[in-house]
């Protein structure tokens, strides 16, 4: 008997007379002490499946079939609000959600919230519960737990709050822990710490953990078994190693080919999965992946929906094509894959498009009724970068490190405190407003969230036409329309869609619209602020390929800001690593990966999981403790010294400057100074 066994679970959402089959005949099991990952993109049904188990599906959703056997009892038979169900929720099965900011009650101390959880699921006394709460907080790595138990949620950082959530989930000693994208909202180094801790809990406590994630790397690093979901169905399941080494479903295979890997050869081009996620309202009677499948055959069209069958021992796949046949197809696809050796752009040192020298951006902090200035928050502290014609400079760092502030400073969206910015030799800080406006045509920006960056009340045509109209690049309606069509075609959209409104498009398409708008004024520099991090994994490759293609075609220079080093490494010629408003390392992209000099860069690289369990096992990495200090309490020495395992006494006293170590490699670390 398994700890949890789900048989033929079906959940539908009834909206607008349409039946959305969010969970479609899903069966799986979990056992104590194992980590099971549900991998899928948004809308694949991975979260709804888990919610259905706990009977937490909200209207208009409804569980219409199947069985959920927990310790052999069908818990679907209990009423939603029955005592049995409440005992299972939180008591037997704990859950951790994505947003640690909203899942804690802001007006109650964390101690009270945890003790409530303990007394609610057992009959221990208040004192006992408090003792246990402190022990729990210690076990999830909250320093000074005795003191901090009386603090309110806002007094903790995002990572700490997620730890508190885990402590709360563990309070009732559940047998199953479901982590729904639990580290997605956190920084990579913090996320890695938390997942490591969860892994320890599972291994020592014989708890079963279900990881819901879109990140293949996370699944590869932590999971024992994996279920791949797509369009409400499980398409493939099996041991983690087996799935990554020998994918037996075209979707899994394509996904692995579409995601950038940290250990990639820079010349690898991603093979995107064309098309967009399926419409679950339409019952096609075919395999859900059929419309996007590169390996589909006539058989797939007629044979109905494939069942999840065992192809090898413990390895199930839902595909009509025989596994051996699939293997052959995958092999020949790999052979045909043109190894496009990208033309190495030669770095011409004398032709910088953009030079940023020692810029500072300070925000004053006021206090009291008289608003007396008490301190400066140094969001940027002496940042220098250069970007050369036709090149891409990647800026990496975790949230709050000043990446976006840097972008805004360059675009003159706010004033900076000191330093100089030159664009094509022109000093941007001493240029009049009028000239700045004409410079705006030369520089444009692609934003992170394609849902917030397009005006919902404007048609796509009008959005893309805006820069053309503002900068008077074309005269007359006909000429403008023509240019808009051309731009839409350039980014791979059908120009006939230009009368549509943004909400009618998918995330990937919307990002293409954003790119078309950025190209409309014929810029030579585009600042890309996390342009793919809000997109589904299968769509990311499409956008990366588009950006690379456009760069080659139009000779654009990119300033590419991201927190995901594997993407940055792929697209960038040079990479600058930022920490707490300062640049700690600059080097060529390949060099940075092979030979990271700054301990922070090493830790950042180590924290990013690679979607390949085998490669994961062979990595030696620098594990990082703690979190970045607040900008208000910038340490007197090196900003990183407090977290650095190699810190010397000197590091706590003096700030290291960015120095050239060897050709094209600079770092700000005393360890590299001789």
């Amino acid at each position: 008997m398994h700890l949890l066994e789900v048989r033929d679970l079906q959940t539908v959402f009834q909206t607008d007379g349409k039946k959305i089959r969010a969970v479609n005949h899903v069966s799986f099991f979990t056992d104590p002490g194992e980590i099971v990952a549900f991998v899928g993109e948004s809308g694949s049904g991975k979260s709804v499946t888990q919610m259905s188990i706990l009977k937490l599906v909200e209207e208009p959703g409804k569980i219409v079939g199947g069985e959920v056997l927990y310790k052999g009892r069908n818990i679907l038979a209990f009423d939603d609000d029955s005592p049995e169900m409440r005992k299972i929720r939180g008591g037997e099965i704990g859950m951790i959600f994505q947003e640690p900011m909203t899942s804690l009650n802001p007006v109650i101390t964390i101690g009270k919230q945890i003790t409530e959880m303990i007394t609610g699921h057992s009959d221990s006394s208040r004192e006992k519960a408090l003792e246990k709460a402190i022990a729990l907080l210690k076990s999830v790595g909250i320093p000074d737990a005795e003191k901090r138990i009386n603090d309110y949620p806002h007094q903790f950082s995002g990572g700490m709050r997620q730890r508190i959530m885990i402590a709360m989930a563990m309070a009732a000693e559940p047998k199953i822990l479901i982590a729904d994208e639990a580290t997605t909202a956190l920084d990579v180094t913090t996320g890695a710490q938390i997942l490591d801790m969860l892994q320890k809990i599972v291994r020592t406590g014989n708890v079963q953990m279900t990881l819901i994630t879109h990140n293949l790397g996370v699944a590869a690093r932590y999971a024992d078994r994996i279920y791949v979901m797509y369009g409400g169905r499980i398409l493939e399941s099996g041991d983690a190693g087996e799935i990554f080494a020998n994918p037996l479903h075209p979707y899994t295979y394509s996904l692995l080919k579409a995601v950038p890997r940290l250990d990639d050869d820079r010349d690898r081009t991603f093979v995107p999965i064309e098309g967009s996620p399926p419409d679950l309202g339409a019952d096609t009677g075919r395999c859900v992946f059929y419309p996007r499948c590169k390996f589909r055959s006539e058989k797939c069209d007629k044979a109905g929906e494939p069942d999840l069958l065992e192809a090898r021992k413990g390895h199930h796949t839902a595909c009509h094509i025989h596994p051996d046949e699939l293997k052959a197809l995958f092999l020949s696809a790999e052979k045909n894959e043109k190894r496009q050796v990208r033309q190495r752009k030669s770095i011409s040192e004398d032709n910088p498009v953009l030079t940023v020298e020692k810029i500072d951006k300070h925000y004053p902090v006021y206090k009291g009724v008289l608003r007396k200035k008490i301190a400066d928050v140094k969001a940027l502290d002496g940042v220098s970068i250069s970007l050369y014609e036709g090149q891409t400079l990647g800026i990496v760092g975790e949230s709050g490190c000043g990446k976006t502030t840097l972008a805004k400073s360059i675009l003159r969206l706010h004033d900076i405190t000191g330093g100089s910015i030159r664009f094509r030799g022109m000093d941007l800080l001493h240029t009049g407003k009028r000239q700045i406006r004409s410079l705006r045509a030369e520089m444009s920006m692609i934003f992170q969230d394609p849902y917030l960056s397009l005006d919902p009340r404007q048609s796509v045509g009008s959005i893309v036409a805006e820069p053309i109209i503002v900068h008077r690049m074309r005269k007359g309606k006909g000429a403008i329309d023509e240019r808009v069509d051309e731009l839409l075609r350039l980014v791979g959209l059908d120009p006939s869609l230009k009368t549509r409104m943004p909400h009618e498009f998918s995330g990937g398409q919307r990002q293409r619209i954003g790119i078309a708008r950025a190209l409309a004024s014929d810029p030579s520099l585009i600042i890309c602020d996390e342009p793919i991090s809000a997109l589904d994994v299968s769509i990311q490759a499409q956008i990366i390929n588009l950006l690379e293609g456009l760069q080659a075609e139009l000779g654009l220079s990119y300033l590419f800001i991201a927190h995901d080093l594997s993407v940055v490494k792929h697209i960038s010629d040079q990479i600058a690593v930022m920490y707490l408003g300062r640049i700690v390392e600059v080097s060529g992209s390949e060099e940075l990966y092979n030979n990271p000099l700054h301990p922070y860069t090493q830790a950042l690289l180590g924290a990013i999981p690679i979607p390949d369990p085998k490669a994961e096992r062979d990595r030696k990495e620098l594990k990082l403790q703690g979190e970045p200090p607040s900008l208000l309490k910038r340490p007197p020495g090196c900003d990183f010294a407090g977290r650095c395992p190699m810190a010397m006494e000197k590091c706590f006293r003096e700030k290291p400057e960015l120095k050239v170590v060897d050709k094209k490699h600079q770092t700000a670390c005393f360890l590299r100074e001789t």
Partner: protein
Amino acid sequence: MEKIMSFLKNLFDRKIVILAAAGTLLFIGMAIFAPLLAPYDPNRQDLMSSLAKPSAKYLLGTDLHGRDILSRIIFGTRISMVIGILAVFIGTIIGSLLGLIAGYFGGIPDLVIMRILEAVFSIPRIILAIALGAVYGNGLAILAVIIGFSTIPGYARLIRGQVFQVKQNDFIAAGEVIGVSSARQILKHILPNVISPIIVMMTQNIGSAILTEASLSFLGVGINPPTATWGGMVNDGRSYLLTSPLASLAPGVCIVILVICLNILGDGVRDALDPRLKGITH
């Protein structure tokens, strides 16, 4: 043209909106064709049949002075409509503009606009109306302006808050990066995104403008008697509510129906303007 057609199609997608539009049109028709529709002169007194019950002669009965209630309601529609629409027009345009400027620019313009509005409108509007009425005389236009002005801070505050919210979106930053001028940002990108609450507030304010006119008329600073207004009629009939309820109730019901029609119409317009709701059936 195509846009207007698709707007109308979306607007009248719901039956209730058609009903509300028809109701509103009915009242507008009543206002325009009052002299043709009313059976009597609204001010003709038939003192012999004071407070008469409804009959074939006086369909809704008469008031204290023996004036035909139906005729007075029909003529009263004119005053109510004009005051409602004019007041809302003035309040919406000035209030939204101030709110847009305060919200978009923030900082000092915001501080100045909002503090001035608060200072001026800390004076109760009835007292303000009495004072202005004393100076400028109490005509229809003055009344509409006074009522309209008193709604300015409400609009300004609402819009300012909405603008702050919309301003956070990246598409405003995208406009800045492109080099879009402030005027274009406000008119093309901010205004369309804050139009929904403006419309809802407008429809609600038409109703409250009609009611304000009633209370001002009651205090003697509104429309002078014997001109027929709905609010005035409700007040006049108040004392005889038990014996001849129709004198108050009939104009009261008219106010309620018109306000409901306008609110539903307002909701319909708001939904029809929202591109995200297109194609969703109710």
